[in-house]
């Protein structure tokens, strides 16, 4: 039951983050601060799905490291290209 509650909290957090991303991108389109906010929100959502829904938290450190490094690399490249 406790595990299901954690999943529920993560789900609410991810949906709220998505709504916040949308709202800020509509209000402050192409702003640098919003860009960083959206990248951060996307990172949190990716980690939330990978570690909680996909249960990566129980996996070997290699798979955890791979998943985090690859998304950080992606976000870094996108940031360099967009700013």
């Amino acid at each position, binding site marked *: 039951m406790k595990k299901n509650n954690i*999943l529920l909290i993560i789900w609410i957090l991810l949906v709220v983050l998505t709504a916040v991303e949308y709202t800020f991108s509509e209000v402050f389109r192409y702003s640098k601060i919003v860009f960083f906010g959206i990248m951060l929100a*996307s990172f949190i959502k990716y980690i939330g799905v990978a570690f909680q829904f996909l*249960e990566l938290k129980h996996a070997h450190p290699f798979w955890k490291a791979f998943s985090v490094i690859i998304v950080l690399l992606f976000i870094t490249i996108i940031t360099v290209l967009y700013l």
Partner: protein
Amino acid sequence: MEKQMDHKNFYYPPGGILIWIIIALELITFMGGLVAFAVYRNNNIAVVQESQHHLSALIGTINTAILITGGYLMAVGIKKIKIGLTEDAAKMILYAIITGLMFLALKGYEYYDKIIDGIGMSTNTFFSFYWLITGFHFIHVTVAILILLALYIGIKRNKYSKDDFFDVETGGAFWHLCDLIWILVFPIFYLL
């Protein structure tokens, strides 16, 4: 009969190592596509920003929420089957399938809207990237729905239980892969 695996073992991540090799390759492929788009955008900002006005960020946002909800339902379904609540697990997987169908319906509407406006793959490079990347993702979600449907039928036929749920975990991993990809695709095309 299959017992719960030790996921701390390198060879047994949740869903098994084979699905994780697929997940790794798929993530690298989609990220490569999105980076290629970002390189294009860097040199053609005006075209990209003009083209983005033809996309509905609201539809993209709703679809993101739908996929995340599907991911949550699948995660709960896997928890349920692990503790022997197979009927509840089947119900959760069925709900996840419905969210997948909702995603496809909304995406289909978005595609229809573009086609009606005469926007296709050859309209400009932005839309070539858009159709290719979101189109491949659409195919992934379709395949994931079929996998979940097979799992749902399997559970209903007592093929899976708390002692034998490896396939369910593997199918769930593919389902979550669709979430992970979309979480990266969504801001690149719709928000930034």
